[in-house]
């Protein structure tokens, strides 16, 4: 009985180590392949298009919705203490430090991470990745690198967009609905913020972008089992990268705020 438990726990630990090791090796190979030739500019631009430009509406809408809901909650909460003026300050702090990078990261994990996993998964089960190998092309270089680079550039840029939209989301509620002064809101939103906060948001977004691309590509690349496997890869990619985004957000916040 006891031995069986140890056996199960041991097998679980071995499997987890094996999985993490596999991810680490593929991630290392992807970073090493960034500097390899040939440089495929067209492929990279395509990824910027699908990862970046096509994600703008999703990021705008979710950032607007979240910042508006947050402003409603803040206005309601601070009204209890007759401290409505603080709402715009806290809105600015929350949007810049947490909401913009995390919401952008989570939305893009759902949108582009899953698309990467599905695309590479389909390529894997239809032998297209083997075909790449047979055409003397490293799939890590050809498939991972453009997605990784695009994601590392685009997620921070979209986070900046999200901060901007977050400002206007708060404006709509606190100025438009709650009747605060537009001038005061404009000043108060940035009152608690320093340039360091924008830098923290961009660092976080950079890490989230890396997680999204690497996890999405890794889950797709390791797809097995035909249609069922292709179906599972995006789900698994979204769950894993969302989890890692939230966990890494905690550690990054602790680390970067010091």
């Amino acid at each position: 009985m006891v031995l069986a438990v140890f056996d199960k726990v041991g097998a679980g630990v071995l499997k987890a180590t094996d999985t993490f090791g596999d991810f680490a090796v593929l991630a290392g190979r992807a970073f090493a392949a960034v500097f390899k030739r040939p440089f495929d500019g067209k492929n990279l631009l395509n990824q910027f298009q699908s990862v970046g430009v096509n994600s703008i509406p999703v990021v705008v809408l979710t950032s607007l919705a979240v910042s508006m809901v947050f402003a409603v909650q803040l206005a309601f909460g601070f009204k209890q203490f007759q401290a409505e003026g603080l709402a715009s300050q806290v809105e600015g702090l929350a949007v810049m430090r947490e909401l913009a990078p995390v919401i952008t990261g989570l939305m893009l994990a759902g949108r582009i991470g899953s698309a990467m996993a599905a695309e590479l998964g389909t390529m894997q089960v239809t032998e297209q990745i083997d075909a790449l190998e047979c055409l003397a092309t490293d799939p890590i270089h050809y498939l991972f690198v453009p997605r990784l680079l695009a994601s590392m550039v685009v997620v921070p840029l979209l986070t900046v967009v999200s901060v901007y939209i977050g400002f206007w989301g708060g404006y709509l509620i606190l100025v438009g609905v709650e009747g605060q002064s537009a001038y005061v809101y404009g000043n108060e939103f940035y009152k608690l913020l320093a340039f360091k906060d924008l830098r923290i948001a961009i660092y976080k977004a950079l890490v989230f972008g890396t997680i999204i691309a690497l996890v999405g590509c890794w889950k797709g690349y390791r797809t097995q089992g035909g249609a069922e496997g292709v179906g599972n890869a995006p789900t698994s990619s979204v769950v894993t990268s969302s989890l890692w985004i939230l966990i890494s957000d905690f550690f990054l916040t602790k680390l970067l705020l010091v």
Partner: protein
Amino acid sequence: MAVIDVVNLSKAFGPKVVLSNVNLQVEEGESLVVLGGSGTGKTVLLRNIMGLLTPDSGYVAVEGKIIAQLSRDELFTVRQSIGMCFQMAALFDSMTVFENVAFGLRRHHKMTEAEIRARVEECLTMVGMKETEKLKPAELSGGMKRRVGFARAIALKPKILLFDEPTTGLDPVMTDVIGRIILDLKHELGITSITITHDLKSAFEIADRIALLFRGECLACEAPEVFKVNPNPVIQQFLRGDADGPFLLDPPPPKRIPKEAHA
């Protein structure tokens, strides 16, 4: 020296032994056809030759280089001299036919766009697919996809071509077309090739030698006329296409005798 040298090659997936001590040599310009039932390790053999799988024991050498011992970069250099035609073509479905065939040229050769266009047209003409450049793989039939796969494989002017069941799932006419294309490629390009097929008609047309894989082992590897009269009961059963005999592990269901025969 053989161009492809398979020596004591063994490969298992878990407890299932797929290849067991397989030995095959393919000389320059020779066309070897590998026959065998489903699941006897024919595709695994090709994947070992391409370095997509690593042997459990034994080795595969291509032009004297042992595939499993090569670094990634060395392996890619060797692969540029091998064209692989996949069973389901494995065309890149996000690209057009032209882009599929031009893929290797763009990656590995410093050619102008005009040179690439000329080479792609030449390859597509060879396989009778000249007017399909702008189509996507989803718009092609099974036979057309295979032919585009051939064009992609020959674009880099390889010394070796590997065909993985190029006629499976095609109608008899298209099977004959594919067989003729393989023969044309053999005569026009003088390429060394290994073809895996179940189609005996095209096998005997294409082959300089025929090998039969049976339960992971290579039963015979000889000229077609010798293979045809090989007394081995497994080979004879395979050639007859009969369910009764030693070929199957599980006995087949008994043959039904038509009612008229009883009367």
